């Protein structure tokens, strides 16, 4: 009966087997900070800010009609999807390769893993500035290096070249976030059971076979969740393009997030900005949902 005595002092809800009391704080904060903005944006998307009267006018579905007819928006969506896909592909592949490389107990590898996390603590806004400087045609060390080895013409303005600008931004993203993937993958690799590997070795499987047949399937869930988390963030990416290219040249690097920001704050079209945001949200929801179904992730 000692246990009972203890239980009596506990807040009653937590004794229960019902999940609600546990989830209440989470639900409360999400309702205020996530659900409210969501509905607010739905309401806002049916209105538009009228500068002259400093107020909102009801416009019905006008913003949605405008959205689907707006070539800038479709371009931004395409850029965003392309950017997300490219970054994800590179970051997952490179992240896995590096994870396999530095997943070792040999001395020195702990330091390596520590050094790698350094890229994560730099605010993306500052990272953008760093790469802006390094990719400058005249003063940039990356542009100079790439020019020297002949990959690009000497003194190319990487971020002003339509065919290169997006890749210039991708470099910054990959640099900053590949270590994030590495961290997750290394942790995943460390947690893998060792029995299957021993039997694979006895069977004389090659390194590639082991990776393809054993590691990859066992890492499936880790990779799926990493892709999901990173993909969501990539889709909302704002800081890099904002700082590095202003969406240029032309609209080559204009992402949905930047477009929504621009409409909202530069043009004071709150309704249309909210509409773009909602549209972006629906697209991510859809893609994420498909992804979760396809990869059979269950929570």
């Amino acid at each position, binding site marked *: 009966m000692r*246990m009972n005595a203890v239980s009596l002092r*506990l807040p009653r809800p937590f*004794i229960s*087997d019902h*999940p609600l009391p*546990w*989830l209440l704080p*989470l639900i409360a*904060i*999400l309702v*205020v*900070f*996530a659900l409210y*903005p969501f509905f*607010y*944006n739905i309401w806002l998307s049916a209105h538009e800010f009228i500068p002259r009267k400093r107020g909102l006018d009801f416009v019905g579905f006008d913003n949605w009609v405008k959205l689907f007819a707006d070539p800038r928006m479709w371009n931004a969506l395409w850029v965003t999807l392309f950017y997300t896909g490219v970054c994800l592909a590179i970051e997952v592949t490179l992240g896995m390769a590096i994870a396999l490389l*530095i997943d070792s107990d*040999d001395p020195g*590898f702990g330091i*390596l893993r520590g050094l*790698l*996390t*350094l*890229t*994560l*603590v*730099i*605010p993306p*806004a*500052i990272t953008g500035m*760093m790469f802006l*400087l390094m990719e400058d045609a005249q*003063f940039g*060390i990356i542009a*100079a290096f790439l020019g020297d080895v002949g990959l690009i013409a000497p003194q190319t303005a990487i971020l002003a070249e339509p065919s290169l600008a997006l890749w210039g931004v991708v470099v910054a993203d990959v*640099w900053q976030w590949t270590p994030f993937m590495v961290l*997750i993958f*290394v*942790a*995943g690799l*460390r*947690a893998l059971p060792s029995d299957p590997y021993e039997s694979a070795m006895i069977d004389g499987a090659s*390194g590639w076979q082991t990776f393809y047949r054993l590691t990859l399937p*066992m890492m499936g869930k*880790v990779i799926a969740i990493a892709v*999901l*988390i990173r993909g969501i963030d990539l889709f*909302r990416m*704002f800081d890099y393009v904002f700082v590095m290219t202003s969406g240029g040249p032309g609209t080559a690097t204009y992402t949905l997030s930047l477009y*929504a920001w621009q409409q*909202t*704050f530069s043009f004071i079209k709150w309704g249309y900005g909210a509409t773009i*945001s909602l549209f*972006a*949200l629906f697209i*991510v*929801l859809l893609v994420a*949902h498909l992804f979760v179904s396809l990869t059979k992730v*269950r*929570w």
Partner: protein
Amino acid sequence: MLLSPWQRALRIGLAWAVVLAFAFPIFYWLTVAFKPDGDIFSVPPRVFGFEPTVQSFEEVFGISLGFERGLEVLPGGGNFYMLPRLWDSVVVALFSTALAVVIATLAAYPLSRMRFRLQHHFVFWVLSTRMMPPVAVAIPMFFIYKNFGLLDTYTGVILIHALMNMPLAVLLLKSFFDDIPVEIDEAALIDGASRFKIFRKIVLPMAMGGVAATAVLCFIFSWTEFLFVLTLTQTSLKTVPVVSSTFVTSTGTAWGNMAALGAAAMVPAFVFILLVQKNLVRGLTLGSLKQ
């Protein structure tokens, strides 16, 4: 896998090469912080070949490493103001991390241990709260904050950062709890222990590595967040990412100052990571133990 000595050497060499390649931009940024103004830009660009100076640090932090500084016009327009901003960043990151981790831990436990209707959808909904473009959250928050007096306060920024990190934290923590065999709970339940006691005395201690890993990620995301802080603060607090944009002035960007602030801002975050480094790698398993 067993590697021959030369394979091992190759691996070590390759690993260092990769990591150094990643470290290079940071190193370059550090040289910018220590370069005299005239050397930051040169044609062709140079990494070395300058006389290091701490002038940028002196200007950014209003400190004196050599002699006193006095009246002067600085980009961003304020002497003695960057140290408090670093402090703001630390306070916001620490408290929002703590808040996010506490709430997420409480929520992750039942999500891992109890089954309820629509559970999968609930988790997906939690995750979906991270999908909204930040600008769409910032505007309604601005009005709420203004009404409740949260604008330009620590509490306000801490709350929004905690929210921002909540989906990630819940997801990660749930997977850590999933790694702990449910049989332990069942045994304790049969002994008559309450759910909360099991959570606090058994499951939580076992998942501590995961909690630490979650905390690090929350800390990093709060440390580097830009748009919420920009929108929801004015003058009483500012975090590093926002305040570093004040170096972009109408007469040019103060690159040296910005690099100095960036360099200094790496230190607290990195210290935090080092403190939990062991747990970070051990903890971030995302439920892979249970396949």
